């Protein structure tokens, strides 16, 4: 019989983050289907709040490692603690959220345990006791199902692939697992987090809308001139009024890197698509974008999609968007901002 380990790091408040609760939900569902043993493994500076919050998830055992040395997301200590929790659980299947902290470390842990790993998993299915996962390849351009015989099998679930686990809190006793941290594991010190100033923060993962700006914003308009300053104002005003998250096509971000006339707030972090991010938002509005299919895979997880473009054959829109408005984005977005601003 399989043992499923739900492995999670806690956040600064000692609780699980949203992605962690989503992975727990997947683990609980899989446990029911496989008739397996569910074990929870928690680590971080503090773990009791997280353990109590998920006390009624159906786990047979709660393992944990807590201490100030595990507060920092640092490869050396995170790998040591994950290895210790995996060995203590004797898990055959491990489910964890695809957070940056887990993604940094869990492949290395599989190497230590002679196991295997799959990341960016969007679905986990068990039929007749056999486990299959679904994940994208070639930056989401191909999708495949994977089964493995090697164990332990670590599965990192993409955030928002599952809904978050919900249940009554309770009180549990976490069984402490021994994990020593010698000096050799402290060569790296995390100094902190760099966050853009609030007025320059254009990437909002929890926004209802993704606003994608393409290179057309920096091209000559119908008067034969470029209007980059006006474009910047229109886009930033729209982000302010709508609270949307800003994405960009690769070509526009590349312009910024090549020191051509470009939008000053645009960076590689805004890039969506094959070599950028794959954000998940309920709605997406694309403006002045053009491009081939590989660059539009950033749309993949956007539920409702609309586009504004002067070109009715725009590659971002035809067959990819639900509605394409053939219109001047400068004109339309100016009117949109006026309407949103007057509310």
């Amino acid at each position, binding site marked *: 019989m399989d043992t499923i380990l739900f492995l999670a790091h806690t956040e600064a408040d000692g609780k699980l983050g949203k992605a962690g609760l989503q992975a727990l939900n997947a683990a609980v569902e899989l446990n029911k289907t496989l008739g397996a043993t569910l074990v929870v493994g928690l680590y971080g500076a503090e773990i009791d709040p997280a353990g109590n919050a998920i006390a009624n998830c159906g786990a047979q055992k709660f393992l944990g490692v807590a201490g100030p040395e595990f507060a920092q997301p640092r490869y050396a200590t995170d790998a040591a603690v994950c290895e210790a929790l995996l060995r203590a659980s004797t898990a055959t299947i491990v489910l964890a959220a695809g957070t940056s902290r887990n993604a940094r470390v869990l492949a290395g842990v599989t190497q230590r345990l002679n196991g295997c790993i799959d990341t960016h998993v969007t679905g986990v299915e068990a039929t007749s006791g056999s486990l299959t996962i679904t994940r994208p390849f070639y930056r989401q*351009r191909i999708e495949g199902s994977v*089964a493995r015989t090697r164990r332990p099998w670590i599965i990192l679930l993409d955030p928002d692939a599952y809904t978050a686990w919900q249940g009554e809190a309770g009180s549990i006793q976490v069984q402490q697992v021994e994990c020593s941290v010698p000096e050799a594991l402290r060569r790296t010190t995390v100094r902190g987090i*760099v966050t853009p100033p609030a007025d320059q923060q254009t990437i*909002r993962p929890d926004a209802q809308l993704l606003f994608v700006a393409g290179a057309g914003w920096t091209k000559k308009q119908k008067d034969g001139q470029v209007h980059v300053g006006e474009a910047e104002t229109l886009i930033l005003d729209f982000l302010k009024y709508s609270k949307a998250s800003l994405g960009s096509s690769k070509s526009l971000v590349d312009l910024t890197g090549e020191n051509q006339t470009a939008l000053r707030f645009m960076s590689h972090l805004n890039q969506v698509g094959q070599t950028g991010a794959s954000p998940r938002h309920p709605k997406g509005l694309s403006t002045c974008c053009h491009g081939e299919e590989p660059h539009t895979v950033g749309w993949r997880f956007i539920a409702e999609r609309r586009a504004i473009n002067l070109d009715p054959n725009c590659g971002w829109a035809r067959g990819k968007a639900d509605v394409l408005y053939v219109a001047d984005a400068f004109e*339309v977005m100016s009117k949109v901002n006026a*309407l949103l601003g007057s509310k």
Partner: protein
Amino acid sequence: MSNPFHVVVCASIVPDPLQTLEPVTGQTGPGLKNEMMLPAILDPWAAHALYEGAHLMKQVAGSKLWLVSLAPRAKLQQVMMTVAQKVPLQLVAVDGPCGGFVDAHHTAAALANAIRKIEGIDFSRLLLFGGWESASRSAGVTLQLVGERLGIVDQFQGVDSIKPQEDGSFEVLERIEGARHQVSVCAGPPAVLGWATGSLGEPRNDPQVGMLNMRAIMPALQRAATAAPSADGLQYTNVVTPKQQRDTKIVKDKTADEIAREIVQWIGQE
């Protein structure tokens, strides 16, 4: 600075992003239709790692740079004709399949073996670079596996910057959730850095650099060891191109005011 780095960049090749990719199933498992015919490029994020490595080599005197690449030899040779013109490098080639369906664990084993055999490398000075994810397997695990096989316990992923310090340590910026960066300081090499885009543009082609590089690249390609992948319990089913086609409604006959009202209404809907 008197603490030179030995930078090893792991980078493979991927189909040119503008090519249409169609999965097919062969005798050895899934692959791409006409895979050997598709034009290839150096993996984009790994290419950034190469440019950052070359930049670091210029900054820190005495540093060395190797490019370790596992790919079909003939395809790699084609790609190297361009890559060789970008930055001075020493190629270590491994001849083997590098598609998205090859298991990362076997790729990592072959890369680690090749790195161990590099002549003149000082593992205490090693910075193992690569892309944080490939554009083929897109898993973001190979570098970690190679790092573990080489016994490196300081690893960073989604790196956008490395700043060497006078005392031999270096500061690293890693991408984390919400478009933020985590700032870490590592006491020094050895370390693994999986690069995101970094901050450097693509270097211009320099034919002189290319000619110098190619003198050593051709023999390196001829010497390439062979890596044979093994499925090792990995089984693929239902490898398909996701259905993405939507029935797009084209709106041509509305004024900017009408479109704006419609968009504002749409944004406000639950």
